[in-house]
C-alpha cells in the first residue's frame, strides 16, 4: 500500500467516523421536532432547549460525575422548559415562530447567567465525565468501516434506535395517528374525539425532551465542556433536517448523516492540511441545509397542513 492510498483510507475513516458522531445530536433533536411538527407545532424553541439541556447536563456531570443521571437531568430540563413553550403555542395561541425565537434569547440569557453563577469567572473550562466510544469485539476491528460504524458512543446507537421507535410510534400506533391528525386537520381530529390540545402539548413536550437530551449528547459525548456558543444553530439545522427528511424519522436519520458528512468534511480536511479556507467548509452544512429546504427538490406538499396555525376549539 503506498502513501497516497494510506492517506486517503485514513481520510475516509476519520471522515466517516466524524460524520456519524456529528449527526447524532441533530438527529435526536430532529426526531423530537418531527413529533411537534406532526402535531401542528413548529417548535423553533428547540435551539434554546438544546442549550439549556447542554448546561443542565454539564452542571449535573460536574457536581455528580454520573453521566446517565446527567443525561436524565438534561431530558427533564428540556421537558420543563417546553411546558412553558407548549403553553405559549397551544393555550395562549401565540405566533409559534415569535414565541420560539424569543424563547431562544431567553434561554441564552438564562444559560449564561446560571453558568457564570455556578462557575464564577474562571476562564479555565472545567472538564467533566463523558461517554466513551464503544469497542465492539470483531466488529470494531473491521478495517475502514469498523472503527467508524462500530466505534461510536452508546448514545449514537440509542439515537438510531429511537429513530425506529419514533417511526413505529408515528405510523403504527393510535397515538401517532391522533398526533398526525392534529397536525393535518385539527377540526376533523377534534370531531373524531381527539384532544388536539393534548396532542399538541404531547408533541411539544416530546420535542423538548429530545432537544434537552440532544444538549446532553453534545456535552457528554462530544465537547465535554459548556460554552454559550455550543449549539450554534444546530437546533435550526434540526428544523431543516425535519423538512429534508419529509417529516419522517427514518428519512431524517439519512438527512442527519448527510449533514454530519458536510460538517465533518471541515474537521477531516483540517487534520490533513488543505488550502481551502476553513470558513468555506464551516459554512457548507448551512448551505447544504438551505438548498435542501429551498423547495428546489419539492416537499411543500407533504408538510403537515395545519403546521404553524394555532387551533381554537369553538
Amino acid at each position: 500500500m503506498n502513501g497516497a492510498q494510506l492517506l486517503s483510507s485514513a481520510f475516509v475513516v476519520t471522515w466517516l467516523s466524524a460524520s456519524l458522531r456529528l449527526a447524532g445530536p441533530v438527529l435526536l433533536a430532529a426526531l423530537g421536532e418531527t413529533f411537534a411538527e406532526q402535531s401542528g407545532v413548529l417548535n423553533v424553541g428547540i435551539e434554546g432547549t438544546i442549550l439549556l439541556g447542554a448546561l443542565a447536563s454539564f452542571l449535573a456531570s460536574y457536581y455528580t460525575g454520573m453521566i446517565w443521571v446527567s443525561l436524565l437531568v438534561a431530558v427533564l430540563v428540556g421537558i420543563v422548559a417546553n411546558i412553558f413553550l407548549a403553553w405559549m403555542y397551544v393555550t395562549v395561541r401565540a405566533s409559534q415562530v415569535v414565541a420560539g425565537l424569543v424563547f431562544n434569547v431567553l434561554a441564552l440569557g438564562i444559560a449564561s447567567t446560571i453558568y457564570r453563577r455556578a462557575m464564577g469567572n474562571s476562564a479555565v473550562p472545567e472538564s467533566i465525565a463523558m461517554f466513551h466510544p464503544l469497542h465492539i469485539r470483531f466488529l470494531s476491528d473491521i478495517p475502514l468501516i469498523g472503527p467508524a460504524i462500530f466505534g461510536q458512543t452508546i448514545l449514537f446507537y440509542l439515537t438510531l434506535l429511537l429513530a425506529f421507535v419514533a417511526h413505529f410510534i408515528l405510523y403504527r400506533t393510535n397515538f401517532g395517528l391522533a398526533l398526525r391528525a392534529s397536525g393535518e386537520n385539527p377540526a376533523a381530529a377534534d370531531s373524531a374525539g381527539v384532544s388536539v390540545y393534548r396532542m399538541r402539548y404531547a408533541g411539544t413536550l416530546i420535542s423538548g425532551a429530545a432537544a434537552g437530551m440532544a444538549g446532553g449528547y453534545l456535552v457528554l459525548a462530544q465537547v465535554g465542556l459548556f460554552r454559550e456558543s455550543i449549539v450554534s444553530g444546530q437546533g435550526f439545522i434540526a428544523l431543516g433536517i425535519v423538512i429534508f427528511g419529509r417529516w419522517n424519522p427514518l428519512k431524517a436519520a439519512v438527512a442527519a448523516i448527510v449533514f454530519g458528512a458536510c460538517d465533518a468534511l471541515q474537521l477531516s480536511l483540517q487534520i490533513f492540511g488543505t488550502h481551502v479556507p476553513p470558513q468555506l467548509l464551516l459554512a457548507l452544512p448551512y448551505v447544504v441545509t438551505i438548498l435542501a429546504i429551498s423547495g428546489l427538490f419539492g416537499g411543500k406538499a407533504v408538510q403537515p397542513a395545519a403546521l404553524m396555525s394555532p387551533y381554537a376549539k369553538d
Partner: protein
Amino acid sequence: MTRLFERRLTPLDSPLAIFTTTTTAFLAAMLVTSFLFLSYGASPFQAYFALFHEPFATLRGFGYALVRASPLALIALGTIVSWRSGFMYLGFEGSFVIGAAATGWLALLTAPGSRVGPLPFFLFLPLAISLAFAAAGIWAGLVGLVRARLGGNEVLISLMSNYVAIFILQYLVSGPMRAPGSLPETPLFPRATWLPFILHGTRAHAGILIAIIAAGLVWMLLQKMPLGYEMIVTGFNPFAARYAGIDVGRRLVLAAFFAGGLGGLAGMVEVLGAQHRLMDGISGGVGFVGIIVALLARLNPLAVIPTAFLYGGMSVGADAMQRRASIPSSITFILESLAVLFVLAFDALRYYKVNLSVLWRRSPPPVAEQVSK
C-alpha cells in the same frame, strides 16, 4: 348573565389597551427579573437604579444608549416591513454583517493611498448607504425569491443564512481584508469616513438620525403609499391580495429586499459610527434583539425609536451593572425576552371585557342578556 370577565369576539385594539398591556407585561418581566437580582444578594431597587441610571441620567451613558439604539432601531424597522408583508425574515444577523462588510470594503477603498483615494463625506455617505442597502437587500432578496418562486420556508432559510454571512465575514477579516497584526480584523477606517459625532463629550453619532429618518420613511411607506398598502394586504391575506390583482410574489421579494437593506444599514451605522473597523463577531446578537424591539413596539415604526432607545439604554446599563456590582449583563437578555413573552401572553387579556359592575350589583341582570350564553 353578566360575568366579571366576558369574552370578546375581537381583541380590544384601542391604543390605550395596547399600551396598557405592553406596559404591564414589561413591569411583570421586571418583577420576575427582580428575583434574579435577589439571588445575587442585590436589592432589586438598587439593581434597577444601576440599570437605568447610567444610560438615562448621565450624559456619557446617554450617548452610548444612542449608539446602541441606532442599529437596533434599523433592524426593528426591517422586521416591521417584512413581517407586516407576511414575510417572516429572521436573517438580520446576516444582513447586518453583509451591510457592514460592504461598507468596510468601500471605506477602505477610499483610504488615502489606496486605488480610489479619499472621497468628500457628502459623496461617500450616500454611496455607503446605497451600497450597504443594496448588498444586504440582495442578500435577503434571494431568500424572498426562494419563498416566492419555490415555496421554501423563509423562517428557516433566513436563520441559516445568518451563519453563512457570519462565516463570509470571518473569511474576509482573517484573509483578504486582514490588517497586519495578531487579531483577525481590518485596518481602522480613515477618519474621513466616520459618521460625525453629534453630542459633545459623548460617542453618540449621526447613526441615530439615520434611524429616525428611516422610521419616518417606513411609516410613510406603510401608511401613506399604495405600495405599502399592497404589501400589508399581502401580509394579511395573500389570496385576497392576488384576487385584487396584486403581484404577491413581487411584493414578497420587495419586502425581503427592504428588510435586508435596513439590516444592512444597521451594519453600516455600526461600523461607520461605533467600531470604525470590521472584526469577527461584530453582530453579537443585535439581529435578534432588534426583532424583539420591533415586537415590543407592536410593529409600529414610530414606536420603534423610543423602544430601541430603551433597549439600547438597558444594554448600556447592564454593562455598568456588571462592572460595578458584578451581576452578569446576560440578565438583561432575560428581562428583554421575558418582556416580549409576557406581551404575547397578556395579549390574550385583550380578548376579555371586565364588568366591574358585577362586583357591587347583587340583583340578577335584565333579561336582554339571555342572548349571550
